[in-house]
């Protein structure tokens, strides 16, 4: 049992790597798509709506399977440059996680944009500030602050979501836990340790978000 602990800690690094890379890519996607969502052009905002509708409306597991096993069966994908990335389980997981968290992040940011009081924007305009500067200096900072609690939730959900990487052969925390169980036949002990590591990570994320909320409160 004790000998399996270093293996689980090693796997935790892979879990954290998956989480951080997909959160960064997902945040960029989320910002882009939330800006598209509040755009007045119907084609642009319908497209962004469709993206978030699809990725929020289907299970993450199904998305990973479509990207990993589904796309891998198509000949024209295998012969294209995309296969360089799609061949590797790591990139398939990153793509699925990023697109998924990107969709949720775009919704979180969109609703944050919508809660900004029109008075603040009007105040900016009445002072003769350019609308571009209003957007970057007033709307975006307020939206980010407003969305912090919901985004913290999303990070925690994503942390647990990374456990699905084990279904596409990646040896993340859950994958290694399952592997240890398959050789020791002791599911309860191993899952309790793995669960404890997830809880600890959640604790860290929770406190980081709380700290940021305090720092940027107004």
């Amino acid at each position, binding site marked *: 049992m004790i000998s399996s602990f270093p293996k689980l800690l090693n796997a935790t690094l892979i879990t954290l790597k998956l989480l951080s890379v997909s959160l960064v890519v997902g945040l960029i996607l989320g910002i882009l798509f939330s800006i598209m969502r509040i755009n007045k052009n119907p084609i642009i905002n319908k497209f962004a709506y469709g993206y978030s509708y699809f990725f929020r409306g289907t299970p993450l597991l199904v998305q990973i399977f479509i990207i990993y*096993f589904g796309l*891998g*069966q198509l000949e024209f994908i*295998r012969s294209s440059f995309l296969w360089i990335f799609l*061949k590797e*389980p790591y990139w398939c997981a990153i793509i699925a996680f990023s697109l998924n968290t990107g969709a949720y992040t775009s919704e979180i940011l969109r609703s944050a944009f919508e809660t900004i009081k029109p008075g603040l924007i009007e105040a900016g305009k009445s002072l003769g500030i350019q609308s571009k500067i209003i957007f970057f200096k007033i709307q975006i900072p307020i939206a980010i602050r407003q969305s912090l609690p919901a985004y913290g939730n999303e990070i925690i959900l994503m942390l647990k979501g990374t456990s699905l990487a084990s*279904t596409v*052969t990646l040896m993340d925390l859950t994958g290694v836990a*399952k*592997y240890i*169980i*398959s*050789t020791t*036949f*002791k*599911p309860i002990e191993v899952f309790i340790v793995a669960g404890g590591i997830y809880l600890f990570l959640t604790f860290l994320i929770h406190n980081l978000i709380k700290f940021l909320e305090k720092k940027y409160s107004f």
Partner: protein
Amino acid sequence: MSIIKKFSLGLLISLFLTISANADKIRIGTEGAYPPWNSKDASGKLIGFEVELAWTLCRYIGQQCEIVEQDWDGMIPALIMRKFDAIMAGMSITAERQKAISFSQGYADEVASLAVMKGSDLEGISTSEGINLTKKTGAVKKDLKTLTSALAGKTVCTQTATIHQNFLESGDVGKINVRTYKTQDEVNLDLTSGRCDVALAAAVAFTDYAEKSGKPVVLVGPTFSGGAFGNGVGVGIRKDDTELLKAFNKAIDKARKNGDISRIATKWFGFDASM
């Protein structure tokens, strides 16, 4: 009587009835994803060599049976936790597993083989037809050496927690890049997609897949037996369940004598894999 009281009484009675109905049933766990050993037909019904054999053995034991589905990687823990009483899931008898559970005598033999897609550079490797790892003779060592150099730098795929994974990680074929999957279906899919250069499983698992899917999957290298590959496939039973173990051993004896195992094996494998 109030509605709630009536309802809970009804619930209690039905609970009691299910428990007593299950009490003398032998529950047999199988994976349902390893054709032709055990799999599911289009309607979701469990079929395959072991499913049919299980019903036959139960008839000889003279008790009612129920076949329960269980994911492969949780098979032994599920048996220990009494989710079912016996495993019939193409599980080879190995020393490692015998530390956790008992096995009946073997009822069928499984040879393992490597498989590649047609056109792979591994198609040309020349080894003997089959090697038995129990006795590492000079010829066996020579074949393992050939395999070690042929597999270097290749991604070798196999199902998790199997004898095949144990062999690949045993060092007999050097340090290689092993990728493990939850089911054999997934191994087959990634062998076809090209993510795996080569895969290892029961030879029949590949020939069955090649036949049903029409994909050009071909067997290469020797067939493997003995050593890490264990001593045939048997019924897995909890260590304290000695009565059930005896009953299964007797039933297997009878089924073998009456030719049932051979008949069912020939039906599902196309050859007599009984032992």
